[in-house]
Protein backbone atom coordinates (compact mmCIF):
# COMPACT_ATOMS: atom_id res chain seq x y z
CA UNK A 1 0.00 0.00 0.00
CA UNK A 2 2.70 2.44 1.05
CA UNK A 3 4.85 1.73 -2.01
CA UNK A 4 1.86 2.23 -4.29
CA UNK A 5 1.10 5.60 -2.84
CA UNK A 6 3.90 7.36 -4.73
CA UNK A 7 2.90 6.12 -8.17
CA UNK A 8 2.36 8.91 -10.66
CA UNK A 9 -0.81 7.49 -12.23
CA UNK A 10 -4.39 7.90 -11.04
CA UNK A 11 -5.06 5.51 -8.15
CA UNK A 12 -8.53 4.70 -6.84
CA UNK A 13 -7.06 3.77 -3.46
CA UNK A 14 -5.43 7.19 -3.14
CA UNK A 15 -8.64 8.91 -4.27
CA UNK A 16 -10.46 7.11 -1.48
CA UNK A 17 -7.74 8.17 1.00
CA UNK A 18 -8.18 11.79 -0.07
CA UNK A 19 -11.96 11.56 0.26
CA UNK A 20 -11.67 10.00 3.70
CA UNK A 21 -9.18 12.63 4.83
CA UNK A 22 -11.27 15.51 3.49
CA UNK A 23 -14.47 14.24 5.11
CA UNK A 24 -12.96 13.40 8.49
CA UNK A 25 -10.91 16.61 8.63
CA UNK A 26 -13.98 18.75 7.93
CA UNK A 27 -16.56 16.58 9.66
CA UNK A 28 -18.03 19.40 11.71
CA UNK A 29 -18.54 21.69 8.72
CA UNK A 30 -19.95 18.91 6.53
CA UNK A 31 -22.31 17.80 9.30
CA UNK A 32 -23.68 21.35 9.59
CA UNK A 33 -24.15 21.60 5.83
CA UNK A 34 -26.06 18.32 5.70
CA UNK A 35 -28.19 19.35 8.69
CA UNK A 36 -28.95 22.61 6.90
CA UNK A 37 -30.09 20.73 3.78
CA UNK A 38 -32.43 18.52 5.84
CA UNK A 39 -33.71 21.55 7.74
CA UNK A 40 -34.45 23.55 4.59
CA UNK A 41 -36.25 20.61 2.95
CA UNK A 42 -38.26 19.93 6.11
CA UNK A 43 -39.31 23.55 6.61
CA UNK A 44 -40.19 23.93 2.92
CA UNK A 45 -42.36 20.80 3.00
CA UNK A 46 -44.14 21.90 6.18
CA UNK A 47 -44.85 25.39 4.82
CA UNK A 48 -46.00 24.16 1.41
CA UNK A 49 -48.15 21.37 2.90
CA UNK A 50 -49.86 23.59 5.46
CA UNK A 51 -50.63 26.13 2.76
CA UNK A 52 -51.79 23.58 0.15
CA UNK A 53 -53.96 21.51 2.50
CA UNK A 54 -55.45 24.63 4.13
CA UNK A 55 -56.50 25.92 0.72
CA UNK A 56 -57.82 22.52 -0.18
CA UNK A 57 -59.95 22.36 2.99
CA UNK A 58 -61.25 25.92 2.69
CA UNK A 59 -62.26 25.47 -0.94
CA UNK A 60 -63.93 22.18 -0.15
CA UNK A 61 -62.29 20.24 -2.91
CA UNK A 62 -62.98 17.01 -1.15
CA UNK A 63 -65.71 15.79 -3.45
CA UNK A 64 -64.19 17.16 -6.64
CA UNK A 65 -60.66 16.00 -6.34
CA UNK A 66 -60.35 13.39 -3.66
CA UNK A 67 -57.66 11.57 -5.59
CA UNK A 68 -55.62 14.60 -6.49
CA UNK A 69 -52.94 15.54 -3.92
CA UNK A 70 -52.93 19.38 -3.83
CA UNK A 71 -49.43 19.47 -2.29
CA UNK A 72 -47.66 17.32 -4.88
CA UNK A 73 -47.14 19.89 -7.62
CA UNK A 74 -46.13 22.82 -5.35
CA UNK A 75 -43.67 20.54 -3.52
CA UNK A 76 -42.26 19.25 -6.80
CA UNK A 77 -41.72 22.79 -8.12
CA UNK A 78 -40.26 23.99 -4.83
CA UNK A 79 -37.88 21.03 -4.61
CA UNK A 80 -36.68 21.52 -8.19
CA UNK A 81 -35.89 25.18 -7.42
CA UNK A 82 -34.38 24.31 -4.04
CA UNK A 83 -32.34 21.49 -5.59
CA UNK A 84 -30.86 23.83 -8.20
CA UNK A 85 -30.09 26.39 -5.51
CA UNK A 86 -28.38 23.82 -3.27
CA UNK A 87 -26.41 22.35 -6.18
CA UNK A 88 -25.27 25.87 -7.14
CA UNK A 89 -24.27 26.80 -3.56
CA UNK A 90 -22.48 23.48 -3.01
CA UNK A 91 -20.64 23.68 -6.34
CA UNK A 92 -19.55 27.24 -5.66
CA UNK A 93 -17.94 26.02 -2.43
CA UNK A 94 -16.05 23.18 -4.12
CA UNK A 95 -12.71 24.96 -4.20
CA UNK A 96 -13.27 27.30 -1.27
CA UNK A 97 -10.02 26.00 0.26
CA UNK A 98 -8.12 27.82 -2.49
CA UNK A 99 -9.23 31.14 -0.99
CA UNK A 100 -6.24 31.42 1.33
CA UNK A 101 -2.53 30.87 0.83
CA UNK A 102 -2.46 28.29 3.62
CA UNK A 103 -5.40 26.45 2.08
CA UNK A 104 -3.74 26.44 -1.32
CA UNK A 105 -0.49 25.05 0.09
CA UNK A 106 -2.40 22.37 1.95
CA UNK A 107 -4.34 21.43 -1.15
CA UNK A 108 -1.58 21.57 -3.76
CA UNK A 109 1.07 19.84 -1.66
CA UNK A 110 -1.03 16.80 -0.76
CA UNK A 111 0.37 13.66 -2.28
CA UNK A 112 -1.78 12.73 -5.24
CA UNK A 113 -2.43 13.50 -8.87
CA UNK A 114 -4.35 16.65 -9.75
CA UNK A 115 -7.21 14.46 -11.00
CA UNK A 116 -7.50 12.70 -7.64
CA UNK A 117 -7.55 15.97 -5.71
CA UNK A 118 -10.00 17.54 -8.18
CA UNK A 119 -12.46 14.65 -8.04
CA UNK A 120 -12.17 14.43 -4.27
CA UNK A 121 -13.55 17.93 -3.93
CA UNK A 122 -16.09 17.61 -6.75
CA UNK A 123 -17.49 14.41 -5.25
CA UNK A 124 -17.62 15.74 -1.69
CA UNK A 125 -18.81 19.27 -2.34
CA UNK A 126 -20.59 18.93 -5.69
CA UNK A 127 -22.11 15.47 -6.05
CA UNK A 128 -22.65 14.38 -2.42
CA UNK A 129 -24.86 17.36 -1.37
CA UNK A 130 -27.04 16.84 -4.46
CA UNK A 131 -27.49 13.15 -3.67
CA UNK A 132 -28.07 13.93 -0.01
CA UNK A 133 -30.70 16.50 -0.98
CA UNK A 134 -32.46 13.97 -3.19
CA UNK A 135 -32.42 11.37 -0.40
CA UNK A 136 -33.73 13.93 2.12
CA UNK A 137 -36.56 14.88 -0.22
CA UNK A 138 -37.49 11.22 -0.70
CA UNK A 139 -37.50 10.39 3.01
CA UNK A 140 -39.25 13.56 4.18
CA UNK A 141 -41.86 13.30 1.44
CA UNK A 142 -42.44 9.65 2.24
CA UNK A 143 -43.12 10.64 5.84
CA UNK A 144 -45.50 13.35 4.58
CA UNK A 145 -47.37 10.79 2.48
CA UNK A 146 -47.75 8.41 5.43
CA UNK A 147 -48.94 11.20 7.74
CA UNK A 148 -51.35 12.69 5.20
CA UNK A 149 -52.77 9.25 4.38
CA UNK A 150 -53.41 8.55 8.01
CA UNK A 151 -54.89 11.88 9.11
CA UNK A 152 -56.59 13.28 6.01
CA UNK A 153 -59.26 11.90 3.69
CA UNK A 154 -56.94 12.07 0.72
CA UNK A 155 -54.52 9.83 -1.11
CA UNK A 156 -51.15 11.59 -0.80
CA UNK A 157 -48.92 11.29 -3.84
CA UNK A 158 -45.18 10.89 -3.64
CA UNK A 159 -43.32 13.92 -5.00
CA UNK A 160 -40.67 11.92 -6.85
CA UNK A 161 -42.58 11.05 -9.97
CA UNK A 162 -42.07 7.63 -11.43
CA UNK A 163 -39.96 8.29 -14.50
CA UNK A 164 -40.85 5.05 -16.25
CA UNK A 165 -44.51 5.83 -16.75
CA UNK A 166 -44.07 7.51 -20.10
CA UNK A 167 -41.41 8.81 -22.46
CA UNK A 168 -42.17 12.47 -21.72
CA UNK A 169 -41.24 12.02 -18.09
CA UNK A 170 -38.00 10.28 -18.95
CA UNK A 171 -37.17 13.13 -21.32
CA UNK A 172 -38.05 15.77 -18.71
CA UNK A 173 -35.85 14.08 -16.11
CA UNK A 174 -32.96 13.75 -18.57
CA UNK A 175 -33.24 17.43 -19.45
CA UNK A 176 -33.37 18.39 -15.78
CA UNK A 177 -30.31 16.24 -14.98
CA UNK A 178 -28.27 17.76 -17.80
CA UNK A 179 -29.38 21.26 -16.75
CA UNK A 180 -28.36 20.52 -13.14
CA UNK A 181 -24.99 19.18 -14.32
CA UNK A 182 -24.56 22.33 -16.36
CA UNK A 183 -25.36 24.58 -13.36
CA UNK A 184 -23.09 22.53 -11.10
CA UNK A 185 -20.13 22.61 -13.50
CA UNK A 186 -20.66 26.33 -14.11
CA UNK A 187 -20.44 27.17 -10.40
CA UNK A 188 -17.52 24.74 -9.97
CA UNK A 189 -15.66 26.59 -12.73
CA UNK A 190 -16.37 29.95 -11.10
CA UNK A 191 -15.14 28.48 -7.81
CA UNK A 192 -11.81 27.38 -9.34
CA UNK A 193 -11.23 30.68 -11.08
CA UNK A 194 -12.34 32.84 -8.19
CA UNK A 195 -12.82 30.96 -4.91
CA UNK A 196 -13.85 34.09 -3.00
CA UNK A 197 -17.61 34.83 -3.20
CA UNK A 198 -17.94 32.31 -6.05
CA UNK A 199 -21.73 32.00 -5.65
CA UNK A 200 -22.39 35.75 -5.91
CA UNK A 201 -20.03 36.05 -8.85
CA UNK A 202 -21.71 33.08 -10.55
CA UNK A 203 -25.17 34.61 -10.05
CA UNK A 204 -23.94 37.93 -11.49
CA UNK A 205 -22.56 36.13 -14.56
CA UNK A 206 -25.86 34.26 -15.01
CA UNK A 207 -27.85 37.51 -14.77
CA UNK A 208 -25.55 39.10 -17.34
CA UNK A 209 -25.84 36.09 -19.66
CA UNK A 210 -29.60 36.00 -19.24
CA UNK A 211 -29.90 39.69 -20.06
CA UNK A 212 -27.77 39.14 -23.14
CA UNK A 213 -29.82 36.06 -24.09
CA UNK A 214 -33.11 37.93 -23.66
CA UNK A 215 -31.87 40.74 -25.84
CA UNK A 216 -30.75 38.20 -28.45
CA UNK A 217 -34.12 36.45 -28.41
CA UNK A 218 -35.97 39.75 -28.61
CA UNK A 219 -33.85 40.86 -31.56
CA UNK A 220 -33.28 37.63 -33.43
CA UNK A 221 -36.05 35.44 -32.03
CA UNK A 222 -37.31 34.72 -35.54
CA UNK A 223 -34.43 32.41 -36.30
CA UNK A 224 -35.70 30.05 -33.59
CA UNK A 225 -39.22 29.89 -35.07
CA UNK A 226 -38.63 26.82 -37.31
CA UNK A 227 -37.79 24.81 -34.15
CA UNK A 228 -41.45 25.07 -33.13
CA UNK A 229 -42.26 22.51 -35.79
CA UNK A 230 -39.41 20.18 -34.81
CA UNK A 231 -39.87 19.89 -31.07
CA UNK A 232 -38.18 16.52 -30.87
CA UNK A 233 -35.09 17.83 -32.62
CA UNK A 234 -35.19 20.94 -30.43
CA UNK A 235 -35.30 18.74 -27.32
CA UNK A 236 -32.30 16.61 -28.33
CA UNK A 237 -30.36 19.69 -29.40
CA UNK A 238 -31.02 21.36 -26.04
CA UNK A 239 -30.01 18.16 -24.22
CA UNK A 240 -26.83 17.89 -26.28
CA UNK A 241 -25.91 21.55 -25.82
CA UNK A 242 -26.44 21.41 -22.04
CA UNK A 243 -24.44 18.20 -21.70
CA UNK A 244 -21.66 19.60 -23.88
CA UNK A 245 -21.52 22.79 -21.80
CA UNK A 246 -21.31 20.70 -18.60
CA UNK A 247 -18.49 18.56 -20.02
CA UNK A 248 -16.55 21.54 -21.42
CA UNK A 249 -16.87 23.50 -18.15
CA UNK A 250 -15.73 20.46 -16.14
CA UNK A 251 -12.66 20.05 -18.37
CA UNK A 252 -11.93 23.79 -18.15
CA UNK A 253 -12.18 23.77 -14.36
CA UNK A 254 -9.95 20.68 -14.12
CA UNK A 255 -7.27 22.29 -16.33
CA UNK A 256 -7.47 25.51 -14.30
CA UNK A 257 -7.17 23.52 -11.06
CA UNK A 258 -4.18 21.61 -12.43
CA UNK A 259 -2.47 24.87 -13.36
CA UNK A 260 -3.29 26.62 -10.06
CA UNK A 261 -0.33 28.23 -8.39
CA UNK A 262 0.12 29.94 -5.08
Amino acid at each position, binding site marked *: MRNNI*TQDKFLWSRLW*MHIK*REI*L*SNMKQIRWQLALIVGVVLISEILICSNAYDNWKQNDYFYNSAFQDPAQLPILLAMVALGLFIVAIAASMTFSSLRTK*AGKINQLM*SVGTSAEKFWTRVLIYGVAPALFFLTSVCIIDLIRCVLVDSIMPIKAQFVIINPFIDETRVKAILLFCSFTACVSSFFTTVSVYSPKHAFLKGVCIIIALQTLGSWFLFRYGNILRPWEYHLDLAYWTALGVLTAIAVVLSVVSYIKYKETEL
Partner: protein
Amino acid sequence: MTDMYDFFNFILQIRNFVIHLQCSITLIHNNNMIEIKNLSFGYLKGHWVFNDLNLTVEQGGIYGLLGPNGQGKSTLLYLISGLLRPNEGEVTMNGTSTGLRLPSILSKIFIVPEEFTLPAITMKEYCQLNAPFYPKFSFDELSENLKAFGLDTDINMASFSMGQKKKAFLSFALACNTEILLLDEPTNGLDVTGKADFRRFIASHMNDNRTIIISTHQIHDVEKLLDHIIILGKNGLPVIDSPVSLIANKLCFEMIANGATPSQNEIFSKPTFGGNNIVSIRTDESPETEINLEMLYELAAEKPSEIKQILLNN
Protein backbone atom coordinates in the same frame (compact mmCIF):
# COMPACT_ATOMS: atom_id res chain seq x y z
CA MET B 1 -12.97 0.03 -23.94
CA THR B 2 -10.55 -2.47 -22.40
CA ASP B 3 -8.17 -1.92 -25.32
CA MET B 4 -8.23 1.82 -24.74
CA TYR B 5 -7.58 1.29 -21.02
CA ASP B 6 -4.66 -1.02 -21.78
CA PHE B 7 -3.30 1.49 -24.27
CA PHE B 8 -3.41 4.33 -21.72
CA ASN B 9 -1.78 2.12 -19.10
CA PHE B 10 0.93 1.23 -21.61
CA ILE B 11 1.57 4.93 -22.35
CA LEU B 12 1.68 5.67 -18.59
CA GLN B 13 4.14 2.84 -18.01
CA ILE B 14 6.42 4.19 -20.75
CA ARG B 15 6.18 7.68 -19.23
CA ASN B 16 7.02 6.37 -15.75
CA PHE B 17 9.89 4.35 -17.17
CA VAL B 18 11.33 7.45 -18.90
CA ILE B 19 10.98 9.52 -15.71
CA HIS B 20 12.73 6.83 -13.62
CA LEU B 21 15.44 6.46 -16.26
CA GLN B 22 16.03 10.23 -16.17
CA CYS B 23 16.18 10.14 -12.35
CA SER B 24 18.63 7.22 -12.37
CA ILE B 25 20.90 8.93 -14.91
CA THR B 26 20.88 12.12 -12.85
CA LEU B 27 21.67 10.21 -9.67
CA ILE B 28 24.53 8.36 -11.32
CA HIS B 29 26.10 11.60 -12.55
CA ASN B 30 25.90 13.61 -9.34
CA ASN B 31 24.24 13.88 -5.98
CA ASN B 32 22.56 17.18 -6.82
CA MET B 33 19.12 16.76 -5.39
CA ILE B 34 17.62 20.05 -6.48
CA GLU B 35 18.83 21.95 -9.48
CA ILE B 36 17.68 25.42 -10.35
CA LYS B 37 18.72 26.35 -13.85
CA ASN B 38 18.39 29.81 -15.38
CA LEU B 39 15.36 30.51 -13.27
CA SER B 40 13.47 33.73 -13.88
CA PHE B 41 10.35 34.44 -11.94
CA GLY B 42 8.21 37.46 -11.20
CA TYR B 43 4.74 37.95 -9.77
CA LEU B 44 4.24 40.85 -12.19
CA LYS B 45 5.56 40.96 -15.73
CA GLY B 46 8.81 42.86 -15.95
CA HIS B 47 9.34 42.86 -12.16
CA TRP B 48 11.62 39.91 -11.63
CA VAL B 49 12.05 38.44 -8.18
CA PHE B 50 14.67 36.12 -9.68
CA ASN B 51 16.46 36.78 -12.91
CA ASP B 52 18.59 33.94 -14.30
CA LEU B 53 19.18 32.23 -10.97
CA ASN B 54 21.30 29.09 -10.88
CA LEU B 55 21.49 27.11 -7.68
CA THR B 56 22.26 23.56 -6.67
CA VAL B 57 21.14 21.84 -3.52
CA GLU B 58 22.99 18.65 -2.78
CA GLN B 59 21.65 15.64 -0.96
CA GLY B 60 22.18 15.75 2.78
CA GLY B 61 22.74 18.87 4.85
CA ILE B 62 20.96 21.84 6.28
CA TYR B 63 20.77 24.87 4.03
CA GLY B 64 20.14 28.30 5.48
CA LEU B 65 18.34 30.67 3.13
CA LEU B 66 18.86 34.22 4.30
CA GLY B 67 18.25 37.64 2.86
CA PRO B 68 16.43 40.92 3.35
CA ASN B 69 12.65 41.24 3.17
CA GLY B 70 11.22 40.97 -0.32
CA GLN B 71 14.26 39.30 -1.87
CA GLY B 72 12.34 36.11 -2.55
CA LYS B 73 13.26 33.64 0.19
CA SER B 74 9.74 32.27 0.56
CA THR B 75 9.20 32.52 -3.20
CA LEU B 76 12.26 30.35 -3.73
CA LEU B 77 10.85 27.74 -1.33
CA TYR B 78 7.55 27.79 -3.22
CA LEU B 79 9.38 27.39 -6.53
CA ILE B 80 11.37 24.45 -5.16
CA SER B 81 8.21 22.78 -3.87
CA GLY B 82 6.37 23.33 -7.17
CA LEU B 83 3.76 25.61 -5.65
CA LEU B 84 4.95 28.25 -8.11
CA ARG B 85 6.24 27.63 -11.60
CA PRO B 86 9.12 29.57 -13.14
CA ASN B 87 8.51 32.01 -15.99
CA GLU B 88 11.77 30.83 -17.51
CA GLY B 89 14.22 28.10 -16.60
CA GLU B 90 13.46 25.07 -14.48
CA VAL B 91 13.53 23.63 -10.99
CA THR B 92 14.16 19.91 -10.88
CA MET B 93 14.37 17.33 -8.14
CA ASN B 94 16.41 14.29 -9.13
CA GLY B 95 15.89 15.34 -12.73
CA THR B 96 12.10 15.73 -12.59
CA SER B 97 10.48 19.13 -12.69
CA THR B 98 8.88 19.91 -9.33
CA GLY B 99 6.28 22.07 -11.08
CA LEU B 100 4.63 18.91 -12.43
CA ARG B 101 3.56 18.12 -8.85
CA LEU B 102 3.78 14.38 -9.45
CA PRO B 103 2.88 12.20 -6.45
CA SER B 104 6.37 10.68 -6.51
CA ILE B 105 7.83 14.16 -6.01
CA LEU B 106 5.19 15.41 -3.59
CA SER B 107 5.80 12.43 -1.31
CA LYS B 108 9.46 13.46 -1.05
CA ILE B 109 8.93 17.15 -0.30
CA PHE B 110 7.31 18.61 2.78
CA ILE B 111 6.89 22.33 3.27
CA VAL B 112 6.15 24.03 6.57
CA PRO B 113 4.98 27.49 5.52
CA GLU B 114 4.96 30.52 7.77
CA GLU B 115 1.18 30.42 7.92
CA PHE B 116 -0.75 27.17 7.81
CA THR B 117 -4.06 25.73 8.92
CA LEU B 118 -4.72 22.57 10.86
CA PRO B 119 -8.13 20.91 10.93
CA ALA B 120 -10.21 20.82 14.10
CA ILE B 121 -9.36 17.21 14.91
CA THR B 122 -6.95 15.57 17.33
CA MET B 123 -3.28 15.16 16.42
CA LYS B 124 -3.81 11.39 16.53
CA GLU B 125 -6.58 11.57 13.93
CA TYR B 126 -4.58 14.02 11.83
CA CYS B 127 -1.65 11.61 11.71
CA GLN B 128 -3.85 8.62 10.93
CA LEU B 129 -5.32 10.49 7.97
CA ASN B 130 -2.14 12.09 6.62
CA ALA B 131 0.70 9.71 7.48
CA PRO B 132 -0.23 7.07 4.84
CA PHE B 133 0.69 9.57 2.12
CA TYR B 134 4.34 9.55 3.24
CA PRO B 135 6.03 6.15 2.79
CA LYS B 136 8.78 6.82 5.35
CA PHE B 137 6.54 8.24 8.06
CA SER B 138 7.62 7.18 11.55
CA PHE B 139 5.05 7.12 14.33
CA ASP B 140 7.82 6.51 16.87
CA GLU B 141 9.59 9.71 15.87
CA LEU B 142 6.31 11.59 15.95
CA SER B 143 5.44 10.52 19.47
CA GLU B 144 9.00 11.29 20.55
CA ASN B 145 8.79 14.81 19.09
CA LEU B 146 5.35 15.48 20.52
CA LYS B 147 6.42 14.23 23.92
CA ALA B 148 9.42 16.54 23.91
CA PHE B 149 7.26 19.47 22.86
CA GLY B 150 4.81 18.60 25.64
CA LEU B 151 1.87 18.05 23.33
CA ASP B 152 -0.93 15.57 23.86
CA THR B 153 -2.14 13.63 20.82
CA ASP B 154 -5.69 13.35 22.12
CA ILE B 155 -6.45 17.06 22.34
CA ASN B 156 -8.32 18.76 19.51
CA MET B 157 -5.88 20.93 17.58
CA ALA B 158 -8.44 23.74 17.36
CA SER B 159 -7.69 24.45 21.02
CA PHE B 160 -3.94 24.78 20.38
CA SER B 161 -2.22 28.15 20.55
CA MET B 162 -0.27 29.39 17.51
CA GLY B 163 2.99 28.14 19.02
CA GLN B 164 1.51 24.74 19.86
CA LYS B 165 0.16 24.42 16.34
CA LYS B 166 3.60 25.16 14.98
CA LYS B 167 5.15 22.56 17.29
CA ALA B 168 2.57 19.97 16.24
CA PHE B 169 3.05 20.67 12.53
CA LEU B 170 6.85 20.65 12.84
CA SER B 171 6.67 17.33 14.69
CA PHE B 172 4.56 15.89 11.89
CA ALA B 173 6.83 17.35 9.20
CA LEU B 174 9.94 15.85 10.78
CA ALA B 175 8.27 12.46 11.25
CA CYS B 176 7.38 12.34 7.54
CA ASN B 177 11.08 11.73 6.80
CA THR B 178 10.83 13.28 3.37
CA GLU B 179 14.02 13.77 1.40
CA ILE B 180 13.46 17.51 1.25
CA LEU B 181 12.06 19.50 4.14
CA LEU B 182 11.39 23.16 3.47
CA LEU B 183 10.92 25.35 6.52
CA ASP B 184 9.75 28.93 6.17
CA GLU B 185 10.42 30.93 9.34
CA PRO B 186 10.15 27.79 11.47
CA THR B 187 10.97 29.42 14.79
CA ASN B 188 8.39 32.23 14.52
CA GLY B 189 5.89 31.80 17.30
CA LEU B 190 7.99 29.30 19.26
CA ASP B 191 8.90 30.02 22.88
CA VAL B 192 12.50 29.86 24.14
CA THR B 193 12.37 26.16 25.04
CA GLY B 194 10.49 25.47 21.83
CA LYS B 195 13.32 27.02 19.83
CA ALA B 196 15.89 24.93 21.69
CA ASP B 197 13.81 21.79 21.11
CA PHE B 198 13.48 22.70 17.45
CA ARG B 199 17.26 22.95 17.07
CA ARG B 200 17.70 19.64 18.84
CA PHE B 201 15.12 17.87 16.66
CA ILE B 202 16.57 19.21 13.44
CA ALA B 203 20.05 18.06 14.47
CA SER B 204 18.83 14.64 15.60
CA HIS B 205 16.68 14.05 12.50
CA MET B 206 19.48 14.74 10.06
CA ASN B 207 20.92 11.97 7.93
CA ASP B 208 22.77 11.71 4.64
CA ASN B 209 19.61 11.27 2.60
CA ARG B 210 17.80 14.25 3.99
CA THR B 211 18.07 17.89 2.99
CA ILE B 212 16.55 20.66 5.02
CA ILE B 213 16.23 24.20 3.68
CA ILE B 214 15.46 26.80 6.31
CA SER B 215 14.40 30.29 5.30
CA THR B 216 14.54 32.65 8.25
CA HIS B 217 15.24 36.09 9.65
CA GLN B 218 15.88 34.64 13.10
CA ILE B 219 19.48 33.83 12.28
CA HIS B 220 20.49 33.15 15.88
CA ASP B 221 17.94 30.33 16.07
CA VAL B 222 19.62 28.37 13.30
CA GLU B 223 23.20 29.64 13.45
CA LYS B 224 24.76 26.45 14.76
CA LEU B 225 22.70 24.11 12.60
CA LEU B 226 23.64 25.16 9.11
CA ASP B 227 25.92 23.22 6.77
CA HIS B 228 25.48 25.57 3.85
CA ILE B 229 24.58 29.24 3.69
CA ILE B 230 22.74 30.99 0.88
CA ILE B 231 22.31 34.75 1.24
CA LEU B 232 20.15 36.35 -1.42
CA GLY B 233 20.94 39.81 -2.71
CA LYS B 234 19.47 42.07 -5.36
CA ASN B 235 17.44 40.39 -8.15
CA GLY B 236 17.34 37.33 -5.95
CA LEU B 237 20.84 36.38 -6.99
CA PRO B 238 22.84 34.71 -4.24
CA VAL B 239 25.63 36.83 -2.81
CA ILE B 240 26.82 33.86 -0.80
CA ASP B 241 26.15 30.25 -1.75
CA SER B 242 28.82 28.33 0.10
CA PRO B 243 29.27 25.54 2.61
CA VAL B 244 29.89 26.67 6.17
CA SER B 245 33.26 24.88 6.12
CA LEU B 246 34.40 27.01 3.17
CA ILE B 247 33.27 30.25 4.81
CA ALA B 248 35.04 29.28 8.05
CA ASN B 249 38.12 28.50 6.00
CA LYS B 250 38.14 31.84 4.22
CA LEU B 251 36.93 34.25 6.87
CA CYS B 252 37.78 35.01 10.45
CA PHE B 253 35.12 36.34 12.83
CA GLU B 254 36.42 38.06 15.95
CA MET B 255 35.48 40.59 18.54
CA ILE B 256 38.27 42.97 19.46
CA ALA B 257 38.25 45.25 22.48
CA ASN B 258 38.28 49.01 22.14
CA GLY B 259 41.83 50.26 21.58
CA ALA B 260 43.16 46.91 20.33
CA THR B 261 45.06 46.83 17.04
CA PRO B 262 42.77 45.83 14.18
CA SER B 263 43.74 42.98 11.90
CA GLN B 264 45.44 43.87 8.64
CA ASN B 265 43.10 41.66 6.66
CA GLU B 266 39.98 43.21 8.13
CA ILE B 267 37.23 43.67 5.55
CA PHE B 268 34.31 44.61 7.74
CA SER B 269 33.78 45.85 11.26
CA LYS B 270 30.85 46.88 13.33
CA PRO B 271 30.92 48.47 16.79
CA THR B 272 29.46 46.40 19.57
CA PHE B 273 29.32 46.62 23.36
CA GLY B 274 32.91 46.97 24.61
CA GLY B 275 34.62 46.76 21.24
CA ASN B 276 34.19 45.87 17.59
CA ASN B 277 33.01 42.79 15.75
CA ILE B 278 35.29 42.30 12.83
CA VAL B 279 35.44 40.03 9.81
CA SER B 280 38.84 39.50 8.25
CA ILE B 281 40.31 37.29 5.57
CA ARG B 282 41.73 34.21 7.20
CA THR B 283 45.41 33.56 6.73
CA ASP B 284 47.31 30.33 7.32
CA GLU B 285 48.34 31.53 10.75
CA SER B 286 44.96 32.66 12.01
CA PRO B 287 42.85 30.08 13.84
CA GLU B 288 39.51 28.87 12.53
CA THR B 289 36.68 30.77 14.19
CA GLU B 290 33.02 30.17 14.57
CA ILE B 291 30.89 31.92 11.96
CA ASN B 292 29.03 34.98 13.17
CA LEU B 293 25.99 34.78 10.93
CA GLU B 294 24.82 38.29 11.74
CA MET B 295 28.17 39.75 10.70
CA LEU B 296 28.28 37.60 7.57
CA TYR B 297 24.79 38.76 6.66
CA GLU B 298 25.71 42.42 7.08
CA LEU B 299 28.94 41.94 5.17
CA ALA B 300 26.99 40.37 2.30
CA ALA B 301 24.59 43.30 2.31
CA GLU B 302 27.30 45.95 2.33
CA LYS B 303 30.08 44.42 0.27
CA PRO B 304 28.46 41.80 -1.95
CA SER B 305 31.02 41.76 -4.77
CA GLU B 306 33.94 41.65 -2.35
CA ILE B 307 32.63 38.69 -0.37
CA LYS B 308 31.73 36.88 -3.57
CA GLN B 309 35.27 37.32 -4.80
CA ILE B 310 36.80 36.11 -1.54
CA LEU B 311 34.67 32.98 -1.40
CA LEU B 312 35.25 32.17 -5.06
CA ASN B 313 39.03 32.38 -4.76
CA ASN B 314 40.39 28.98 -3.97
